[in-house]
C-alpha cells in the first residue's frame, strides 16, 4: 500500500492514531487537574472504550502514551494507575498544555516564569562572558528591530521573542535553551501569559532589553544576569496584576 498524500500534502494518519490523540489529551487533562488523583486506578479497558466510543486497541495505545509521559504506571494484572506527580514529564507538549490551560486553578505560569527567570538569566550571563562581535551584533540587531516595531503590537511581540531566542542560542547551553524554548513557546500561546496590557508596557520592555544588551556589550556577567531576571519576573508581575493606575507623563 503506497502512502499517497491527502489534502494536506502529508501521508494520511491512521484513524486509530487520531483517536488516540483525542483520548490521551482528555485523560491528561483529568490527571493534571487532579480529577483522576495520584494513586487512583483508571477505569478498566471496557468502560473506558465505551466512554470514549473507541476500540480497546485505541485505549491500550493511549495508556501506553500516558505511560511514556510519566502519568500512569501500567502493571500486568493490576491495571493502570495514576503516577505520582514527580514522574510526570512536565515538558511533554500535551502535559504542559494541560497545565497551562488550567492555570487559573493550578497557578503554573508563576512557576514557569520563575524557571524562565533562572535559566534565561544564567544564559544571558553566559553570553556576556563568552560573546563574540558577531553575537553582540545579532543581539543589537534584534533590539533594533523591536525599536522599529513599537507601533505594531504583533510585530513587536514577535521581535521580543526573537530577542530572547537569540540570547538563548548564543549561550551555548543547548539543554537550558531547549528546556526554556519549550516552556516559553507554549506559554506564549496562552492568553493568560500575555496578561493585561498596560500603558508603557512596550517602552519598559525595550528599556529592560537595552539593559541586557548593554551588560552583554560590556561583558558584565552579573549585570546581564540581573537585568534578564528582573525583566522576566518584573514584566510578568506587572502584566499579571492590574496595570498601574497613574496616568503616564506626556
Amino acid at each position, binding site marked *: 500500500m503506497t502512502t499517497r498524500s491527502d489534502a494536506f500534502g502529508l501521508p494520511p494518519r491512521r484513524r486509530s492514531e487520531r483517536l488516540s490523540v483525542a483520548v490521551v489529551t482528555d485523560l491528561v487533562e483529568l490527571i493534571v487537574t487532579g480529577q483522576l488523583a495520584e494513586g487512583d486506578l483508571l477505569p478498566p479497558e471496557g468502560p473506558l472504550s465505551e466512554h470514549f466510543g473507541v476500540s480497546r486497541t485505541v485505549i491500550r495505545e493511549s495508556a501506553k502514551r500516558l505511560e511514556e509521559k510519566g502519568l500512569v504506571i501500567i502493571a500486568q494484572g493490576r491495571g493502570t494507575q495514576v503516577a505520582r506527580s514527580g514522574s510526570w514529564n*512536565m515538558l511533554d507538549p500535551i502535559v504542559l498544555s494541560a497545565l497551562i490551560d488550567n492555570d487559573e486553578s493550578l497557578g*503554573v505560569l508563576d512557576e514557569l516564569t520563575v*524557571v524562565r527567570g*533562572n535559566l534565561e538569566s544564567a544564559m544571558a550571563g553566559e553570553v556576556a562572558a563568552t560573546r563574540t562581535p558577531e553575537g553582540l551584533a545579532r543581539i543589537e540587531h534584534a533590539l533594533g528591530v523591536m525599536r522599529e516595531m513599537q507601533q505594531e503590537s504583533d510585530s513587536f511581540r514577535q521581535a521580543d521573542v526573537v530577542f530572547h531566542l537569540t540570547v538563548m542560542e548564543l549561550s551555548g547551553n543547548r*539543554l*537550558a*535553551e531547549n*528546556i526554556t524554548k519549550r516552556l516559553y513557546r507554549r506559554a506564549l500561546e496562552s492568553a493568560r501569559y500575555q496578561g493585561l496590557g498596560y500603558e508603557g508596557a512596550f517602552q519598559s520592555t525595550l528599556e529592560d532589553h537595552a539593559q541586557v544588551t548593554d551588560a552583554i556589550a560590556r561583558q558584565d556577567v552579573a549585570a546581564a544576569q540581573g537585568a534578564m531576571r528582573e525583566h522576566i519576573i518584573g514584566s510578568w508581575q506587572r502584566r499579571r496584576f492590574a496595570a498601574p493606575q497613574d496616568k503616564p507623563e506626556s
Partner: protein
Amino acid sequence: MTESPVDARFAPATRRRPANLAPAITAELVHRIVRGIHPPGAALPPEPALCDAFGVSRTVIREAVKILQEKGLVQVRQGAGTIVTAPAMWDMLDALVLGASITGDDGVIILDDLVVTRRLLESDMANVAARTADADTVGRLGALVDRMDELVDDPAAYAEQDLAFHDTIMRASGNRIARGVVRSLESQVVNTARYLGRPEPALCVASNRGHRRIYERVATHDPNGAAEEMFRHITEAWLARRNGPEDATRLRR
C-alpha cells in the same frame, strides 16, 4: 496474546511486526546523526538503500524516519529527500538524542550543561524551601541526612536516599515545573556511567557533608545560605566524579 517460545523461533521473517525493529533502527540512526556520520544539511541515504543496509521493509524505515522527525533530527523535503537538520533543532531532552550526545567525545560538555541547569533550578528551589519549610519537612530532611551517614558504604542504597533528599526540597519549594524539569533530566541520565561515575564511599561521605550543610540552612530558614550550599554541593559532587579531557569552565559561573 503471546506466542509460545517455540512459535517465535520458527516464525517466518514476514511475521515479525515492524514495531519490534523500528526502535533499534531509530536508535542507530539517531546515533549516526548526532555523531556527525550524517552531518547537518546532508541527506540521509534514500529509502531503498536504508532498507538494504538494515535488511528491513520500507514500512520500518518510514516509521523510523517519522520518529527522527519528531525528535527534530531530520526534515523530509519534497524532492530533496530526508535532510539532517542543524543541531539547534534537535530535541536535546529526548533520551536517545541526549544519550548519543553524552557518549560522544565532547559528551562531558553536555553533562556540564545538565549539571549547570540542574544546579540553577535546585538552588533556587532550596532558597524557597528554606523560606517555607514546615517542621515536618525539616524533620524529614534531618532524618534523611542521618540515614545517609549510615549508608556511605552502600552506594546504591545511599543513592536512593540522596534522590529522596533532593526531591523533598523540591517538593517543599512548590515549583512543580522546576521539579519536573530536574527529574526529567535526572531520569535521562540515571543509567549513564559517565554521569554516575564510580560509586565510592569517600564520595558519599563528601556528598553527605554537603547535604548536612543544606539541611542546616533550611532548618534555620536561611534562604540565601540554602541556595549557596545547594549550588556548592551539586558543583562539588559533579567535579569529584567528572571525568573529562576538557576544562570545566562552564561550571565556574
